[in-house]
């Protein structure tokens, strides 16, 4: 491998760490926003791997891939946000309904 600069193993360990932390985040966090963040972390972990390997093999494929992934990740998060917003709206309405019903 190209000796200069950061060794590949470092890339891989960091990315693996990011991926696992994200995974645990998904499993442990309860707030959906946090879960979305964790997912983002996982995707970016994979991105780091891609970039690292892309440097290792010196081709640009990996970086292109990473770029695409960024977009995808953003899209996913946005959808997630939208759904969360919708859910909260729903909850608010629901709460009010519940109370009126319970009072009546």
């Amino acid at each position, binding site marked *: 491998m190209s000796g200069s600069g950061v060794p590949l193993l470092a890339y891989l360990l960091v990315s693996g760490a990011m991926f696992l932390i994200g995974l645990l985040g*998904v499993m442990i966090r309860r707030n959906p926003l946090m879960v979305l963040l964790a997912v983002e972390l996982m995707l970016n972990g994979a991105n780091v791997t891609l970039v690292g390997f892309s440097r290792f093999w010196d081709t640009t494929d990996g970086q292109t891939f990473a770029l695409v992934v960024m977009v995808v990740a953003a899209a996913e998060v946005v959808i997630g946000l939208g759904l969360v917003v919708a859910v909260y709206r729903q909850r608010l309405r629901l709460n009010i309904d519940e109370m009126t019903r319970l009072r009546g």
Partner: protein
Amino acid sequence: MLSVLPWIVLALPLVACIVLMLWPTEPDRRITRVIAVGSVAAAFALVIAIFVDLLGRDAEERTEVTTLWEWAAVGDLEINLALQVDQLSTFMMLIITGVGSLIIFYSMEYMEEDRDYRRYFAEMTFFVFSMLLLVLAANYLFLIVGWAFVGLASYLLIGYYYDRPSAVAASKKAFVVNVIGDVGMVLAAFLLIRDLGTLEYTEVFATAEGGLGDGSTSAEAVGFLLFVGAAAKSAQIPLHTWLPDAMEGPTPVSALIHAATMVTAGVYMVARSNALYELAPYAAGTIAVVGAITLFMAATIATVQDDIKRVLAWSTVSQIGYMMVAAGLGLYGAAMFHMMTHAFFKACLFLSAGIVIHAMLGEQSLDRMGNLRGRLRAAFVGMLVGALAISGIPPFSGFFSKDEILAYALAQGTLGVIVGIVGILGAGLTAFYMFRLVFRAFYGPDPDGGYNPEPHVTTWVMAAPVLILAFLATFAGWIQVPQGWKLVDDWLDPVVGTPDLKPSLGLEAATSLVSVALCVVAIGVAWWLFGHGSERRLAHAKTLARYREVLHQGYYFDWAFEKFLIEPGRQVGAFLRDFMEPAAIQGSIRSTVVATLETARGLSFLQAGLVRLYVFTMIAGLAIVGVIFILVGT
């Protein structure tokens, strides 16, 4: 000519079924009758034409395969929708359409009071179609298709009275057992494809010797798997439990499907596959043994049944046991011969029972019968002749067919001797339970409380078929006489061959004498026990209570299945559900209060940690896959 006729035969009942189904409104009953009876009777006429045509040829030219269209070609395997007309299939067609038209004719009056007449006849004609497809198919795939169709038809007809839960349960049971059989056959078909690369009868039987190898494991496997199908369809132990329950269907259905034709399909299939069973001695031996066990157990169970139809059902199981014994020992001619006579006398018995039930407005318990012989003459004659025939009293047909099986069995070496002796004992039991039925239903005093309303006499529509069948049950045996002429064997010989070991005159005589003597004794005992009133019967019933219980439970087969198969299955299902569906459990305990609190708390399903569980299982799965890869890879 032979290239067209079988298709017409096959088409007639199908068309009838479709017409009846698509008829916009509930058609006028006369139309229904004409269509249903007409189609099957016409089919019978055509079959006779085919038969005559075959008779005109010499024995080698009697096989004719006609292909309608290449249905599917999978790799080098080609499956065609083709019919094979030969001695065996013609023989079966004669029975199916002949007995079938009689029984459907009989149903015209039997089902008279029923509300959906149309559905009944549509399903009946559909059954006839499926059965014809089963026997006419020229390859195993369409055999399986017909196999599944008759299963479907019997499912529909057993569950005919769908407002009766017991009927629905029975129909489901029958269907599931039959599908187990189908799976056996399909797997056998896979093996044939793998080793022979074809499913066409002619090619399979031609190449089997080389492709599978004599006595090879694969040959045995094919033999066993096919027999799983046969056992399921022909109600052989341990897959027999559905047949007695199948009596929930209308009586003509029991007569046609669960006595005369469908349940004997297993025997037909074994006879058809004789070339394969030549190569699989163990599988064949198993068939003989299972048949022997079945015939004996079923006969014993039949001796304690109090429902007139259940007696006949168990006796059917037992009689098919005889056929299986014969088929297992390679006595295919004898097996088919007994199938024919059995079709006649068992149909006769069922239809007579049908008259009784019809006359007594659906009453089926022997305790509510007695002294009917004066009241229902036709039923009495039919029942008596049937009983004599099935018990093998000369000169009735059962004598010739059953004793041929027994005598030949005794000549087939050790296994043959064993099963033959079991068969003789079974014959005695048969005579006993059949005459128990006759005496309890038609002799002795009126049942306590008498009859109200008085059983009404039935018209000729129901009487005629019974009498015709009674006639056949009496004389049909004469076409094959020990040491004399053997029309059936000679007819079928080119297809199924004839056993090389033949019993000596002495052996045949001895067998006949012993079995007939046994039967006479059994009838005497039956008369002594049941001939006059119930007190003696009840007295002995008390002394034998424990054994009677075992028999009443049918040797606890149902109980065992329930306990060791179905119940554990349910528990596994319940466990899996609870383990896999926290959501479902949540839903079940969810009440308004809890719901309010959860909504207040935000996203309940995240709170409940479901997603976490999902992700967690995914990770576990990942670990599993990784481990497998490592293990396999290195």
